[in-house]
């Protein structure tokens, strides 16, 4: 079965129209020596009923657990309307809106999305999205090199408090074009970047500032932005979109605001899905719009003066500029943007603010419960947002294994990326968690640490 509609009679008539004896004759331009029996080993077909059963069994084996992991992907409530609409065939099975007249739905939606992202980040313009948050940082670094032509180098300053995977991706994607990343240390007590610690910054293209940073700590974004601008650098902000319900948008950081803003769009209505598909958002100042990669939708008029939407500034892109394009990126993450636009419409500014506040409150509750346990303390002084680092008096990995046996994912072990912290765990609770969930976690961890059970309702 390959969803082929032809009857044997259809095939005969079609071959007759072509003037071919059989279907095999249509492949007579492939040199015979190259032909093989290529699909040996590929399994036989499973019909829909059987594949459904197989997948359900595999999904069931993975199960559902209570997760307190954040670290760049966050579990939030997703209104049913989001995917009920985004999954409509007209969105789900359409292509890139190159034929504007036949794609006004997708195009108008992207225009609305660009408006929402620009407003949320406090910037003037946004593109139609990139692949994910990490690759968006790589694109932002390349864009900064194009936009900051006066900088004598291709060096980007990136704090060690930036998501470690983002730093890896940025290096992998931009290194071939000669970009390098100077990793800036963080203050051991505060877990944030201090400008006084930055040495040898001269001549760098841009400073990356992630807010909240990978530890959940809030960086002093105003001072960092002003400092970078005074050095002739651009500021690339990496932000969590939900946090922007509460936190100062990058467009308002310091005296002039950040120059390029990117982030992971997943918290806006996209399920965790083991890592993707997600989408990366990107916003900037109007003066840099031609340096921005990716699709951009503009509003214009049609031949009879009605408003309509179309892809614009396409001369930046690979299908026109080829080797001189701003990026090789072709697609955006259209379906995820569709979901995010519906999500933002339902939540509105107040809903995002409440989601941020509720998530933050649950994380504070979690921290309060866990630091009561023996040998557990917070790692850093100062405010955080909906995620924080805990230090332990013993290795974290066995504790996480123990919690997993209780159906709890206790957080992200920092031993691999930040060994200098000693046993340390990044934990997160969003608005999806209840006080009972927090108590369940604390009780399970308490048992593993040999503490007496935590009385209910103490938080």
């Amino acid at each position: 079965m390959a969803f082929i509609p032809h009857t044997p009679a259809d095939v005969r008539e079609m071959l007759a129209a072509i003037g071919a004896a059989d279907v095999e004759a249509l492949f007579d331009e492939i040199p015979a020596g190259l032909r093989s029996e290529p699909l040996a080993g590929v399994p036989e077909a499973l019909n829909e009923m059987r594949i459904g059963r197989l997948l359900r069994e595999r999904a069931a084996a993975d199960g559902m657990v209570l997760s307190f992991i954040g670290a760049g992907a966050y579990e939030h409530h997703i209104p049913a309307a989001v995917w009920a609409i985004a999954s409509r065939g007209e969105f789900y099975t359409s292509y890139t809106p190159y034929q504007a007249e036949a794609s006004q739905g997708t195009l108008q939606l992207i225009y609305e999305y660009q408006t929402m992202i620009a407003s949320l980040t406090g910037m003037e313009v946004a593109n139609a999205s990139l692949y994910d948050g990490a690759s968006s940082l790589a694109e932002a670094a390349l864009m900064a090199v194009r936009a900051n032509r006066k900088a004598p180098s291709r060096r980007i300053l990136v704090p060690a408090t930036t998501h470690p995977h983002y730093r890896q991706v940025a290096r992998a994607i931009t290194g071939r074009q000669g970009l390098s990343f100077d990793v800036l240390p963080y203050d051991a007590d505060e877990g944030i970047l201090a400008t006084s610690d930055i040495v040898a910054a001269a001549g760098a293209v841009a400073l990356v500032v992630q807010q909240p940073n990978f530890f959940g700590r809030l960086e002093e974004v105003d001072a960092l932005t002003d400092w970078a601008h005074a050095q002739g650098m651009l500021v690339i902000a990496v932000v969590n979109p939900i946090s922007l319900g509460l936190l100062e948008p990058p467009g308002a950081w310091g005296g002039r605001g950040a120059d390029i803003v990117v982030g992971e769009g997943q918290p806006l209505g996209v399920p965790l899905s083991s890592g993707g598909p997600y989408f990366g958002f990107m916003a900037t100042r109007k003066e840099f719009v031609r340096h921005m990669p990716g699709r951009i939708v503009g509003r214009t008029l049609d031949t009879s003066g009605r408003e309509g939407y179309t892809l614009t500034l396409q001369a930046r892109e690979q299908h026109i500029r080829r080797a001189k394009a701003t990026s090789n990126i072709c697609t955006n993450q259209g379906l995820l943007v569709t979901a995010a636009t519906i999500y933002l419409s339902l939540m509105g500014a107040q809903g995002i603010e409440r989601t941020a506040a509720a998530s933050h409150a649950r994380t504070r509750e979690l921290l309060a419960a866990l630091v009561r346990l023996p040998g557990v303390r917070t790692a850093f002084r100062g405010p955080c947002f909906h995620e924080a680092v805990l230090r332990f008096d013993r290795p974290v990995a066995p504790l996480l294994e123990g919690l997993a046996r209780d159906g709890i994912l206790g957080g992200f072990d920092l031993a691999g990326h930040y060994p200098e912290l000693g046993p340390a765990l990044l934990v997160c609770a969003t608005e999806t968690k209840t006080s009972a969930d927090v108590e369940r976690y604390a009780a399970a961890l308490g048992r593993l640490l040999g503490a007496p059970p935590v009385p209910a309702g103490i938080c």
Partner: protein
Amino acid sequence: MSTVPAELEYTDAHEWLRRLPDGTVEVGITDHAQHSLGDLVYVELPEVGRAVKAGEACAVVESVKSASDVYSPVTGEVIACNPVLEKAPETINQDPYRAGWMMRVRVAPDAVAGAVLSAAQYTEFLDGKDD
């Protein structure tokens, strides 16, 4: 049929150059070039003071469906760019040889002259391209 003023010189990349009395050179793109590009929507010009070599890409002209590099026909220093083009790129479509000039270059004294065509040679070159 596109116009090819007799008093200008040309390149096979469809730039024109006008030798000004003060010894500097004014550069733009030809009527043929603006016609094949269509409505221009953006022009990227070099920074004043930039040193350019003959044959070096130093500006970009964009229409909706294409973007083309503009090559300097001479070696020297960019001393001025047409400020009108930033807000009104269509000037090149309307008046490619006068109001639509792109940049002025002070030719370096020791520069080896780039290959340029006379109006007659450029016309012949254009005729040869038609099929």
